[in-house]
Structures are given as structure tokens and as C-alpha cells.
């Protein structure tokens, strides 16, 4: 139960703690206020009553004993107050009054001057505000008792409705301010999380603004430094790859030229085929190195036509696979993207399907709600090959990862096709994921902001 009440988000937790604290403080404040009011009201009651009792006493003591009953009966006593003369101290079922309360009464009674000879000779206090009734007995100098019984109105700490309304308003305003401040103060944490997520997807994600409160600015700066170091690290590695790739181009060009002078046709063909493979590896490496900082401009292109063209090219290159290449979807669909990069990514995916599955079924699924924010275009590329071991579905996107070695030796490739495709799609704000179809074969699902 406690766990269920404990919220998960930092903002909610902070707000929860602050609001619980606020409520406790307000309750305590309210209690202090109420107790104070009770004290004040009791003091007032005691004083009023004491003055009235002493007033009665004065009148009675200054009257001759014979006339006392009569005078007492005629005196205006006020509501809830009875007074009687008796030979005995008051007898009731009420317990004696607690001493602190008695003191309130005594102090007030002493305010009223009563000449020394006429002063009361004894006092008895019974009951108290808690019982709603007080009995005060005063012994006259001649031994008679004046016993006054008074009903005390219950004290009303919540007397003022405006106070309660103001108090409520204050609480609501404080709670609102708390929620607002917490949301504001924890917003940078959400920004940081979003930035970390973006960095994970694209190492060239824009840096965080280094402003706001000091701690937030420091965290943002630290995050930006970390991102820069990661970028630097990735950059160094890709630069290394790119440098090697660049340097390999000259020897490959020379070898291709030399191969043209080999007399033996069969040998020449083989050498050239090897060189093609080598070149493909180098160019994949270069593309992989370059995609991290692609500078191509975004423009409008017909995605449907691009997919059909890529299938045509795949069919031209591998005529035996041509019957297994199919496009399904609208005849035209315009997207905004980097055309060459997009073409490369989709070429890689279609080539994979053709390589492992001997064909590709490409389906273009327009977004459900066109134009809505976050609407995604989906492209599914299916093949009827052996599929991918479930444990490898993500690992195949790691650079230079290669599936089963024996399979790759004959099909070639460096293990960069899928990483390149994913880099490109993520740089577009989309993604590529692979899955095995229940009916066999693999399916690559490409998403792209529509």
C-alpha cells in the first residue's frame, strides 16, 4: 500500500514529500491557533464569570443577613447562572476544579476590590470548563456560603469562517506553488534524460543548453563534455577507419589496372572479383565512417518510386532473384529525407533480404494519421530465408558483427550493411529493427517520420 502510494517520478516524489510536509505544518499551525483561541476564550469566560461572582458576593455581603435571600432573588444574574445561600459549602457531583483553572478565577476575583472585613473567608471551586459547569462557593465572614453555579458555553476555536476560508486559500496557493516549482526544478532532469536518450541514438545530437539554476547548468555542462568525449572517441575510430579506407583506394586502383594485363582470362576474372569484394569492403567502411557526419541536404523524394527502383536494381544485378522481388503499397508517396543516404540504407536492407532469402517483399505502409505529430511511415522488407537466430536480432546491428562465419564467407560483406542502415535511419529520426516472421524468414521494419 505504501509502495503504491509512493510515486515513481522525481517530480511527483518531491511534490509528494513537500505536500505532506506542507499539510503537517498547516495542521500543526491550525492546532496551535485553535489551542490559543481556546485559552483566550477560557480566560475571557473565567474573567467574566469571576467578575459576576464577585459582584454578587459584594451585593450579598453588604446586605444584612435577613435581607440577603430577597436581594439575591432580585439581582439580575444573567443566563446560565444560579446563586444560593447555604449553611454549607457547595455539594455536587462535580470534582474539584484543577488548580491552574482555579488560579484563573482567583486572579480575576482579586481584581475587584472588596473591603478587608467583608472579604470571603474561604473559596471552593468545583467543576471546570471541561464539564461545561462551574460551581464556586464563597464563605461569607459570618460563616454563610454563597454558592454560584454557572454553565460555561463550550469554547469555539473555529469561530471565524473567514479565517478558515483564508487558511484554505493559503494552503491551496502554497500547494500550487509547490507543484509548479517542483515541475520547473525537475524539468532539467527530464531534459537530461531526453538528451542522454538522444545521444544514445545519435552521437551528434545537439548539446544541452547550459543555463538555468547553477546545479543544472553544471550538470548540463558535464553532460556536454561527456558527449563531446564520446563523440571524439567515435570520431577517432571512424577517422582511423576512413583513413585506412582512403589509403587502400590507391593500391586497389593499381591492382585493378594490373589485373587488366593478366593474360589468363580465368585468373583475371578471379582477381577482378576479389578486388571487387575488397573494394566493396572498403567502400562500406568509408560509408560507415562518413554517415556519422552526413552533410547531405534534406529534399523531397518519392519513396514508393525509390523502393521500386531499388527492387529493379536488385533484380538487374541478380536476375534469378527477380521473380521474388515485389513491391506493395501506394504508387507514390512523398517523404522528406536525404536521398542518397536513404537509398543506401534501403539498398543494404534489400540486398540482405536477397542475399539470405533469395528475394524481397517490400511493403510501404503510410502512417495511420497523415500529418499528425509523430506519425511514422513504415517500410517492411520480408524474405523467405532461414531467418536470424533470436539472440542475434540486435547484435547484427553492431559494426563488424557477422552471423554464422561459414555463411558469410561465401556471401561476402564486412558486417556494416545493417549498422549503416540503422545509423542512417536514426539520423532521420526513424529506426530499423529486425524480427523473425512466425511463418519463417526475416522481416526488417523501417520507420521514418512521415
Amino acid at each position, binding site marked *: 500500500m505504501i509502495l503504491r502510494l509512493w510515486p515513481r517520478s522525481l517530480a511527483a516524489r518531491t511534490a509528494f514529500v513537500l505536500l505532506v510536509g506542507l499539510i503537517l505544518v498547516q495542521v500543526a499551525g491550525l492546532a496551535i491557533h485553535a489551542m490559543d483561541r481556546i485559552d483566550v476564550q477560557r480566560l475571557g469566560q473565567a474573567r467574566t464569570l469571576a467578575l459576576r461572582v464577585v459582584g454578587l458576593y459584594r451585593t450579598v455581603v453588604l446586605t444584612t443577613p435577613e435581607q440577603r435571600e430577597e436581594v439575591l432573588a432580585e439581582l439580575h444574574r444573567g443566563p446560565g447562572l444560579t446563586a444560593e445561600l447555604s449553611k454549607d459549602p457547595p455539594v455536587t457531583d462535580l470534582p474539584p476544579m484543577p488548580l491552574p483553572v482555579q488560579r484563573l478565577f482567583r486572579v480575576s476575583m482579586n481584581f475587584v476590590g472588596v473591603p478587608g472585613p467583608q472579604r470571603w473567608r474561604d473559596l471552593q471551586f468545583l467543576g471546570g470548563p471541561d464539564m461545561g459547569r462551574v460551581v464556586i462557593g464563597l464563605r461569607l465572614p459570618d460563616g454563610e456560603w454563597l454558592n454560584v453555579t454557572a454553565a460555561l458555553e463550550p469554547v469555539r476555536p473555529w469561530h471565524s469562517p473567514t479565517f478558515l476560508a483564508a487558511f484554505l486559500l493559503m494552503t491551496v496557493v502554497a500547494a500550487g506553488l509547490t507543484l509548479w516549482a517542483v515541475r520547473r526544478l525537475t524539468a532539467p532532469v527530464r531534459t537530461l534524460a531526453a538528451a542522454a536518450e538522444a545521444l544514445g541514438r545519435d552521437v551528434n545530437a545537439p548539446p544541452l543548453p547550459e543555463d538555468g539554476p547553477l546545479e543544472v547548468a553544471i550538470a548540463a555542462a558535464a553532460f556536454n563534455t561527456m558527449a563531446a568525449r564520446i563523440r571524439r572517441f567515435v570520431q577517432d575510430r571512424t577517422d582511423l577507419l576512413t583513413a585506412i579506407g*582512403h589509403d587502400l*583506394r*590507391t593500391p*586497389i*586502383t*593499381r591492382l*585493378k*589496372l*594490373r589485373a*587488366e*594485363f593478366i593474360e589468363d582470362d580465368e585468373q583475371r576474372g578471379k582477381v577482378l572479383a576479389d578486388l571487387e569484394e575488397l*573494394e566493396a569492403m*572498403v*567502400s562500406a567502411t*568509408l*560509408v560507415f565512417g*562518413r554517415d556519422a557526419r552526413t*552533410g*547531405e541536404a534534406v*529534399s*523531397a*523524394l*518519392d519513396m514508393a*518510386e*525509390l523502393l*521500386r*527502383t*531499388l527492387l*529493379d*536494381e536488385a533484380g*538487374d*544485378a541478380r*536476375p534469378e532473384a527477380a521473380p521474388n522481388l515485389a513491391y506493395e503499397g501506394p504508387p507514390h508517396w*512523398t517523404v522528406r529525407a536525404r*536521398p*542518397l543516404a536513404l*537509398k543506401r540504407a534501403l539498398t543494404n536492407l534489400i540486398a540482405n533480404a536477397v542475399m539470405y532469402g533469395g528475394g524481397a517483399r517490400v511493403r510501404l505502409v503510410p502512417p495511420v494519421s497523415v500529418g499528425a505529430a509523430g506519425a511514422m511511415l513504415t517500410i517492411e522488407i520480408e524474405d523467405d530465408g532461414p531467418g536470424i537466430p533470436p539472440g542475434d536480432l540486435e547484435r547484427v546491428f553492431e559494426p563488424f558483427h557477422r552471423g554464422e562465419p561459414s555463411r558469410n564467407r561465401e556471401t561476402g560483406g564486412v558486417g556494416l550493411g545493417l549498422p549503416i542502415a540503422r545509423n542512417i535511419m536514426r539520423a532521420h529520426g526513424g529506426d530499423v529493427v529486425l524480427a523473425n516472421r512466425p511463418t519463417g524468414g526475416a522481416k526488417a521494419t523501417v520507420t521514418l517520420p512521415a
Partner: protein
Amino acid sequence: MDQPPHIMVVDDDREIRDLLARFLEKHRIRVTAVRDSREARRAWANGHYQLVVLDLMLPGEPGLDFARWLRSQSDVPIVMLTAMGEETDRIIGLELGADDYVPKPFNPRELLARIRAVLRRVGDSIGPRHENGSRPLRFAGWTLEPARRRLLNPDGVEVALTGGEYDLLVALVERANRVLTRDMLLDLLRGRQAGPFDRAIDVAISRLRRKLEDDGRNAQLIKTVRGGGYVLAATVEHA
């Protein structure tokens, strides 16, 4: 072509220079090979060349600067050797008026085919060529951008083309309203596609028609000419 064409090769790698010269000479092309822009200027002053093969990555004066200078001197066709995937170099080069480009490491036979294609195109064409070299071409609402090798539909949306389709379309657009025989088109596609070339042309033409939204049964844009050939029936203007 009784006289073998004479071309200049500018490349800073001596081995590539020598091997390329030997390879091209084996295929009946006379070659003068030089290592940088300075030697190239000297060779240009002392000889007559039908074409220049220019590596853009040169020590000293960059290849693009030399290409610009060369263009200011003459209309000689230029085939650039570009670093693989250096799009900006390629686009600038084509905008400067280079006629074609081959990414390095190049396939010697492909380079040979490109050189021959460019020489043939130059031989074919009447009138000045470079004034409009790589400026966009407009026809029937469509735009062909040679510098970026792309086709834009009337809404400005890029419509993808295969390499062969692009070459074919350029040939048709450059010679709009003139019949191109199958043999001429075959030359363009040679080296690009495997399989029977004849069929490849028919396939490429039908794909082009589909992309240009030209009804295959009743084609209005790319018309079939009886006796084996095609013609682009449209007014082409330089944008």
C-alpha cells in the same frame, strides 16, 4: 575514327598513371600522363587533346581549380576521378562543366567505357556543348539535374532512377526530338547491366515511361520509332 584519340591523364600516383596509360593504349587511345596541375598546363600548351582524365585529389593546385582553368581555356571534355562518395567535389566538378565522373577506385573497363561514351557524345553533338553543360534541363514539367544525377517531377519531388535509366534519359533529353537508335542506346547501357542488352533497353524504357507517367500503350513522351529506336517528344529548355 582512324586516328586514335589523344587524351591527357592527370594523376599524382606514378604507378596508376603508367598502368592507366598502358591500359588505354592497349585499347587504342593515345595517352599523355602528367602528375599535377603544373605539368598538365605545360602539356596542355604543347599538345592537342580530345579529352582530359583528371584526378581531383592532386598535390599542389587542387584538381577543381585546374578544371576551372581548363574550362576557361577550352571546351575539351573532362572525366573526373573523384574520391568515393565525395558528393560535393563531384557536384562542383559537374557544375564546372566536367562531362562525367568515375569514383576511385575505378574499374578500368568502366573508365574506358565512359571515355569512349564522352568522346562519342562530343563527336555527335552539333554546336556548343558546355554553355549548358550541367544546368538543369526542363521537359514537359520534369526537371533533370545532371550535377546531382536526379530527376524531379513537376512538384519538385525526386523520382529515383537506376544508373542505366538515368544515362538513357539524359541521352534522350539531350537529343530531344531526334531518334536514337537501339545501337546508340546499347552503348550507353553497356557495362552497366548484366544480361541481354536488347531486353535491358526495352525494360529500362518501360520503367522510364512508368516513372514519367507516360502510358506505355500510347506513349506521348518517349515514343517508339518503327524500325528500332526511341525519341523524346518534348521541348527541352535549360533552366
